């Protein structure tokens, strides 16, 4: 099922070229097209310093607008920057989904179809339109290849640490596999949590000892969560969110007021 986001982006990028074409066709505004492009360029530069995932669509829209204004201001079909109109739908197809690139190209074809034969000559104009159409299968093919490569990259990532380890080093060889490493890394704190809980239930501990064990269980659980988050961050393309108030599990106060640095199991 096609999501609302995909449809909205496809519509947005379909209207972008039409908007810029309309803008560059209005006699009162057309002479300022290059100025607007320069303004977009400055905004694009400024936005590049802002690291905020929510601004991604705005950034891409400004960049697309900049390219369209640049090509529009310098003569569309005859613009020396016309090649950017081949690259932009590829960029959109990679960034979003091919349908966004198709929407963009459809708008371009509509714009240029009105002036077929008027720009250079009929056959050249038709060939140019056909070459723009060729971008569609190219986007599909390259995106498919890109996704396969991305997947392969993840597969390599899982085992990448295996290189350079001597066959005789049993522990290092086992831990070189990231999945094994995660398993061992997570089993260690969970073993402690399980056993410490048993000690709390079954052993005759003083209140001070019991409090210390509870603190250690909490700290160890936090450490495990961090290990899982780190693993996800290392091996997947998804950014794992973390609350800014999350405290490091490495330290905590003991009942005696002494600060303890937890010795973390080494990832050899």
């Amino acid at each position: 099922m096609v999501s609302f986001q995909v449809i909205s982006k496809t519509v947005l990028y379909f209207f972008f070229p039409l908007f810029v074409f309309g803008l560059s066709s209005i006699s009162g505004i057309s002479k300022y097209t290059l100025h607007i492009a320069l303004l977009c360029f400055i905004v694009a530069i400024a936005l590049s310093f802002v690291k905020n995932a929510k601004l991604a669509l705005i950034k891409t829209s400004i960049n697309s607008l900049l390219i369209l204004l640049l090509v529009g201001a310098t003569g569309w079909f005859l613009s020396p920057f016309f090649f950017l109109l081949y690259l932009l739908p590829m960029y959109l197809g990679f960034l979003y989904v091919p349908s966004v690139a198709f929407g963009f190209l459809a708008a371009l074809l509509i714009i240029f179809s009105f002036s077929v034969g008027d720009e250079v000559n009929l056959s050249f104009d038709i060939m140019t339109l056909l070459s723009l159409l060729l971008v569609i299968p190219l986007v599909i093919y390259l995106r498919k290849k890109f996704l396969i490569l991305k997947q392969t990259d993840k597969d390599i990532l899982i085992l990448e640490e295996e290189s350079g380890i001597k066959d005789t080093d049993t522990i290092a060889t086992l831990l070189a596999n990231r999945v094994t490493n995660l398993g061992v890394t997570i089993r260690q704190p969970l073993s402690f949590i399980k056993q410490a809980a048993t000690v709390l239930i079954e052993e005759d501990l003083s209140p001070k000892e019991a409090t210390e064990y509870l603190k250690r269980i909490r700290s160890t659980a936090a450490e495990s969560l961090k290990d899982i988050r780190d693993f996800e961050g290392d091996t997947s393309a998804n950014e794992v969110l973390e609350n800014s108030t999350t405290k490091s599990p490495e330290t905590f106060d003991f009942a005696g007021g002494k600060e303890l640095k937890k010795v973390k199991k080494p990832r050899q």
Partner: protein
Amino acid sequence: MSKILIVEDDQFIREMYHLILTKDGHEVTDALDGKVGLAMAQEGGFDVILLDLMMPNLDGLGFLQGLKDKPPAKKNGTIIVLSNLAYGDAKQKALDLGATDFLVKADLDPKDVREAVKKALG
């Protein structure tokens, strides 16, 4: 009173085993890593050694190899490997190097550690 050496870098686990074995009346000595543990084990005289595998400076297999290469004058007793590296290769290597038993830490309860020590002491 039996002499037990715990070679374990994880402070929480080491102190937990120390606590339960001390409560059982054993004389427990701790080693923070394989290198320190090996130096202690090479002096000999421990009835049971509880050994972790993944440790800084010298891992558990290195410890076993070191002890095999340079055995103590006064023999140690049973060496029980306690590890979360729950793989056949690691277990086989540990047993080949002189460990008596291999227990997966994640499957253990404190009473299992007690029983393993009790069994080792005969």
